[in-house]
């Protein structure tokens, strides 16, 4: 995963990793009796033939994955995210497009087909995640960025997981997810950690709620749309769990650094200072810009009166004011969390989108009902009903991130540096952001858009 990595090595490692991913995916297909579908590619319904075909495809795609991420300088934990997005993409390209074409059928691009293909999506995600992890394991000896998680970081993860788990009513899952987070965590600030945690939480929903628990308690594996819809109410919980663990994990790390580290080099790299104050102002401004974009959606959907209920009013004007105030506060929080984390427009929009999705889960699905006295509805229907708001939140995030980046770029270009040492640090940070963040942004947006549609009832 360094620059010197040869394409051939990457392809071989990728192929081996793909083999591992394929085995995991194949196992779930065998349990659910879907191998025959794959076998139809070679015009038979023999399960063994299906498995063979499946493994060949998995190996080839794995090699492709290896080539894809070999240039990426991703940290170990981050390759998993590239694996996830790789798997998700192949779900679009494979079972929805190429497989039907091979069989001489129309492509399965409609929602109903996609819903019946939900098990396949889960399988592809599993494939991607396992391939990513296996790729990391294979590269372990040569990867300078790989660090074995220390005992204290696992303890941190456990504490964070337990706290969030208790809060969300998922204590055991929280503990496990917390320990797991320590493995994929990367030394980064709270904002990027939050985005990482959001994706991590979604992966845990697939892993724990949809996979392990049915396997453990019912000894079955059912990834069908019906089963997923039944467990949809756990998705926001797991997303919040993941994001919460990531944030708490990071903060506990900061706290322990502040309290117990005697080496100043490890404690702080840059003081907030006057530019920090200015950044807050920029955040508020960017928040206003995002809020105005969001207003279009809010007005079209007529959600202002609902927002106004937060202050006990029913008028649309009060709703607009409350909406703009919240937009500004979130903008400021964005500045705190993502200051100096966007180095070009794409990264600004990427962070903003991910942050918008997080606030859809926490704000629209959770806090808004709590504040307005309506019951929290995390069910499949509730998630589907929140879809317009999701679009608004994504638009808000995109505008927020873009405007904030422009403002920051104007006054405080952290990527423009004075010395070689600083330049190297900056390049390192940019590489770190590029290493994993794009996968997380894209994955966040993809799951944000398709999951509500897939789990909701028939269109």
């Amino acid at each position, binding site marked *: 995963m360094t620059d010197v990595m040869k394409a051939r090595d990457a392809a071989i490692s990728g192929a081996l990793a793909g083999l591992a991913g394929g085995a995991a995916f194949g196992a779930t297909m065998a349990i659910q009796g879907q191998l025959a579908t794959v076998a139809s590619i070679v015009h038979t319904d023999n399960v063994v033939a299906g498995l063979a075909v499946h493994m060949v495809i998995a190996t080839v795609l794995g090699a492709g994955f290896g*080539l*894809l*991420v070999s*240039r*990426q300088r991703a940290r170990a934990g981050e390759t998993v995210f*590239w694996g996830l*997005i790789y798997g998700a*993409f192949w779900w*679009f*390209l494979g079972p*929805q*497009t190429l497989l039907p*074409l091979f069989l001489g059928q*129309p*492509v399965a*691009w*409609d*929602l109903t087909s*996609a819903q019946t293909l939900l098990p396949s999506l889960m399988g592809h995600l599993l494939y991607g995640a396992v391939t990513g992890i296996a790729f990391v394991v294979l590269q372990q000896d040569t990867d300078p960025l790989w660090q074995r998680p220390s005992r204290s970081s696992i303890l941190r993860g456990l504490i964070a997981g337990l706290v969030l788990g208790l809060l969300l009513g998922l204590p055991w899952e929280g503990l496990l997810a917390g320990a797991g987070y320590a493995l994929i965590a990367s030394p980064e600030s709270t904002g990027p950690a939050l985005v990482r945690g959001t994706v991590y939480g979604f992966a845990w929903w697939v892993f724990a709620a949809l996979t392990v628990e049915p396997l453990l308690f019912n000894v079955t594996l059912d990834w069908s749309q019906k089963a997923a819809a039944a467990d949809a109410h756990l998705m926001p919980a797991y997303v919040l769990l993941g994001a919460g663990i990531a944030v708490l994990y990071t903060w506990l790390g900061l706290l322990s650094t502040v309290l117990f580290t005697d080496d100043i080099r490890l404690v702080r790299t840059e003081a907030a*200072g*006057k530019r920090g*104050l200015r950044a807050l102002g920029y955040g508020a401004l960017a928040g206003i810009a995002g809020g105005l974009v969001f207003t279009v*959606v809010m007005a*079209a*959907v007529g959600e202002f009166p609902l927002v106004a209920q937060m202050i006990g009013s029913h008028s649309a004007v009060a709703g607009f004011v409350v909406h703009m105030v919240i937009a500004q506060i979130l903008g400021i929080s964005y500045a705190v969390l993502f200051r100096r984390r966007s180095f*070009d*427009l*794409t990264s600004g929009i*990427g962070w903003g*989108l991910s942050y918008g999705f997080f606030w859809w889960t926490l704000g629209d699905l959770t806090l808004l009902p709590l504040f307005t006295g309506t019951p929290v509805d995390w069910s499949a229907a509730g998630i*589907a*009903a929140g*879809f*317009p708001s999701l*679009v*608004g939140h*994504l*638009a808000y995030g*995109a505008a927020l991130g873009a405007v904030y980046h422009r403002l920051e*770029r*104007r006054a405080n*270009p952290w990527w*423009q*540096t*004075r*010395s070689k040492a600083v330049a190297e640090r900056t390049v390192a940070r940019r590489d770190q952001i*590029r290493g994993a963040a*794009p*996968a997380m*942004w*894209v994955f966040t*947006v*993809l799951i944000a*858009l*398709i999951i*509500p*549609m897939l789990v*909701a009832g028939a*269109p």
Partner: protein
Amino acid sequence: MEQLGWGAVAGLAAALPVGVLMATQHMVTAFPGWLAFAAYALVIGVALGAVARGTRQGLAMTASAGVLLGALGWLAFSLTLEPLLHGVLPTWSAVAAAKTYPELVGNVLHGAITGLLLHFVVGVWTMKERVRRAPSERTKIVVVGGGFAGVAAAQRFERLVLRGAKLDVTLVSDSNFLLFTPMLAEVASGALEPAHISAPIRSAAAHTTFLYGRVDRVDSVVREVVLESGEVLGYDHLVLAVGSVPHTFGLPGIAEHSFPLKNLADAVALRNHVLRLLEAADRETDPRTRRELLTFVVAGAGFAGTETIAELFDLVHGVSHYYPGIAPEEPRFVLVHAGDRILPELGPELAAYSMERLAARGIEHRLKLRVTEAAEDLVRLENDELIATRTFVWTAGNKPASLVGALTTDTALRAEGMDNVWAVGDCARIPVVDGGFHPPTAQHALRQGKAVADNIAAVVAGRTPVEFRFHTIGVLVALGHRTAAAEIRGRRFAGLVAWLLWRGIYLSKLPGVEKRLRVLFDWTLDLVFPRDIVVTSATPRKSKVRAR
């Protein structure tokens, strides 16, 4: 621009397989649908080209950016634009999204293929480009001097570089901080901490290369600046902003026995010296020596001199309760000035007011008189009056600290007689467009710094530099405790109002929020606590205190 074109090509090329797929699946049938899809593909391709511009990002990054753009494109086109085109308000509901789901799949695939194509196209293109275009040279600019003008120029250059100017700026200064000179007198009186009125240049101009050192000479023929350390800096454009140094006109004893007040070290030395004298005077029994110890003379009644005498008065009387051996009427303060009134920069009324305020406190003045000689324990005036004193502050003359002789510039700030050398600040005589020269004050220096940066950028870009035009906005002089005089845009202020103005304006002009807060804290604590009398240097700079 070229990259956007490649993006468009990639977008359209990627639209081909997806389009064929959609056509064979009877998703797009009519002609307008094709056109819309082609337009969509074009927009996505151009956007991806813009996003991926100039970055040698990996395939994964470009392809995933394509997927992201595809998903966002679905939101923007299928969910928003299409209903609008059909005359329906978009609802963004899950039902509407479900209906357009096929387009989401198509867009995601299209985005990924666009990214894939663009990556390889751009890869080939940038390689060619690298061969064709040598790395562009940045114009080398050296700024000498870390005062208001030099730092303002460096900051302006940073802004210009952000806007795309190809400049490489180095700032050379023999102090690594920007000193806020208007508050220097308050440091001399111990009201402010020295570090609080100075901002490190490395933080004030964070993106400029900073060199801590003294310039030995400038060779404008071969365009080189030679530092005392021997280091040689080549330049394309040189900005001289070296400021001014005290000028004693060769008068005997003055250079040796006077305290200048130009930099932080001067202010600290003066404060320590005064406190040491007070310590000595507290126990001194000889009346003549006591008079020497407790007499404070300032030569020059411009801003610096007037503020210094007022601040010295505040210092001595502010800490006198610590020294029971010194009677309140004993300390004597004398302001010597060659002109017929103090504060020539101010109007006659305000100058008269200032003199009256100082005189009311018992500060003596000698007008139309020059200091002709100074010794360790006395000062001689033009009229042969001898003032016995061990504290003689010289603010009566400054000369440009020029490395290359007297510097006169044209109105566009170019130094006369030298190519590609520019001069700003106190070291340069800069003609005003309608006659005369710009005064050597901070507000002019700041503007000159900015203007010279703009002018150099203009010359580098092949444009003509513009004339420097600026008129003094206002002048402010502090007259000690809660009193000041000010003239701002022709309006005159005096007393407490002027004092509040002085503090408010200068506080806001301090470089950086941090320093502003620190000075504000200093001032606030000053309301409740007495002035500090800690002597911070071990040995006197000059042996002004000695046992008799």
